[in-house]
């Protein structure tokens, strides 16, 4: 047990917690004023719901003793039985098992919260709550087990994901796309521009995300040492490069850079560096950040309007595409000189890691998309996922929560 490591992981846990309210404000500002509370509510509700799911059985499904074949953990650790003060050396030898569990809880919480941007402004709250619980249990928990759990089948093929590029961002991004397509476009799509109602809130949310991400990536070293420092530096560097790149691309395309653009670019950089941050050098992080901005910009401004899916707040365009690029980039830029526990990427003469990253991507994308499709159809048949037309026009704040964010009269 190491006091420094434990301190850093506990602090990181609190940092990652703050990202979920950060996502809420990021999305809330992008929505129309009649729907901001619904987005804040969905994120805050997820914090409560998944926190309990995690300690009751989610942690055990993800990290508990493998049930065989590497697909899912058993229920031996349900209710945190046996998860106590002593470290579990399989996961983190120098911190209490409890603090590893709690750090991972924050990842389980933020992942479904990222998806709310895709079906924003038109989902029925009751159906949403059921869908999130099922999704966390049947999509997030298995994928977390495959990649991070002892005995997980992807953990054993040699793929690398330092802080959850696949488990968190690709899984939520791809699932978000499936849900956006299944729930359908918002009323007024292509007839009106859905103008963000409060960009300062979006910038505030984006700033909280960047801040919290130091815990997300730096804390994933599970110790207070050089590896955490490397993750910290690569995270900040890639994010800066991506924000700057997005702004420059807009400057060239539209004659002026936008606030929303620079924040969106930074977020794309944060996502892309996530799987790579503990395996690549700061100079590689710059390349990863620049290309993350370019790929996500193309996804959001060219691919989305061409394919005409209403991923309302660009969850797939930023988290899906950014996470896929980050996973590929890890296979290109990783070097053992940075992290001896990792592997060399394609640019350092090793093909195996690059191929493993490909297998890893295909498995997780396919599973997340297929299972999300099944769960959505199931919940839709039971409750109906989309609100009525009149409710959508009035707004979700009033119709789903009987509240309004802004008063006009005293």
């Amino acid at each position, binding site marked *: 047990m190491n006091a420094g490591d434990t301190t850093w992981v506990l602090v990181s846990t609190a940092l990652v917690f703050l990202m979920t309210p950060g996502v809420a404000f990021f999305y809330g500002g992008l929505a129309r004023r009649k729907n901001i509370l619904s987005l804040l509510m969905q994120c805050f509700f997820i914090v409560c719901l998944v926190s309990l799911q995690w300690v009751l059985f989610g942690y055990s499904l993800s990290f508990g003793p493998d049930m065989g074949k590497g697909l899912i953990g058993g229920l031996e650790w349900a209710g945190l039985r046996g998860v106590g003060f002593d470290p579990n050396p399989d996961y983190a030898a120098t911190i209490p098992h409890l603090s590893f569990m709690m750090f991972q809880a924050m990842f389980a919480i933020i992942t479904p919260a990222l998806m709310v941007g895709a079906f924003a402004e038109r989902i029925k709250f009751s159906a949403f709550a059921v869908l999130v619980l099922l999704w966390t249990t049947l999509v997030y928990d298995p994928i977390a087990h495959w990649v991070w759990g002892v005995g997980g089948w992807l953990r054993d093929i040699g793929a690398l994901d330092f802080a959850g590029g696949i488990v968190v961002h690709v899984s939520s991004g791809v699932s978000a796309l499936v849900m956006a397509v299944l729930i359908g476009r918002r009323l007024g799509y292509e007839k009106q*521009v859905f*103008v963000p109602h409060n960009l300062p809130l979006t910038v505030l949310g984006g700033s909280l995300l960047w801040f919290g991400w130091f815990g997300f990536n730096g804390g994933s070293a599970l110790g207070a040492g050089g590896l955490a420092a490397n993750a910290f530096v690569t995270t900040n560097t890639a994010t800066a490069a991506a924000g700057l790149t997005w702004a420059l691309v*807009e400057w060239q395309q539209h004659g002026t850079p936008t606030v*929303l653009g620079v924040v969106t670019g930074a977020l794309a950089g944060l996502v892309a560096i996530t799987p790579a941050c503990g395996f690549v050098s700061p100079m590689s992080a710059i390349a990863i950040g620049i290309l993350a901005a370019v790929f996500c910009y193309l996804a959001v401004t060219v691919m989305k309007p061409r394919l005409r899916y209403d991923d309302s707040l660009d969850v797939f365009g930023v988290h899906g595409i950014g996470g896929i690029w980050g996973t590929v980039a890890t296979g290109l830029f990783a070097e053992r000189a940075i992290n001896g526990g990792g592997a060399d990427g394609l640019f350092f003469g090793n093909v195996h890691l690059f191929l493993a990253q490909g297998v890893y991507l295909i498995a997780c994308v396919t599973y997340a998309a297929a299972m999300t499709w099944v769960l959505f159809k199931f919940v839709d048949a039971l409750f109906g996922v989309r609100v009525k037309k009149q409710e959508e026009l009035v707004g979700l704040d009033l119709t789903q929560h009987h509240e309004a964010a802004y008063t006009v009269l005293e």
Partner: protein
Amino acid sequence: MKYIIAIIQPHKLEEVKQALEEVEVNLMTVSTVLGRGRQKGHTEVYRGVKEVGTLLKKVKLEIAVNEDFVEPTVGAIVKGARTGEVGDGKIFILDLFDVVRISSGERGGKAIG
């Protein structure tokens, strides 16, 4: 009696107020409104999606005056709000049927000032 409605540029409100004070017109109702005239608004861009012809922020003044104050009031608004560019705004002058001062119950011209 006339009811004068003026739509002006927001940044011209202070100058219009000063010009109105000079001709001793102190009463007015002011609100922020959205509007669009010959200049056809701004272009906004959100993640590459362009919105052309957005409505612009304007300020609306409403002033009720007796007949001999009509020309001084209109003159003061024009003096304060004019830049000579498209988008300076418009003034509408309507006949006013009656006025009631709620506190005293006075009607018509006596109630207006």
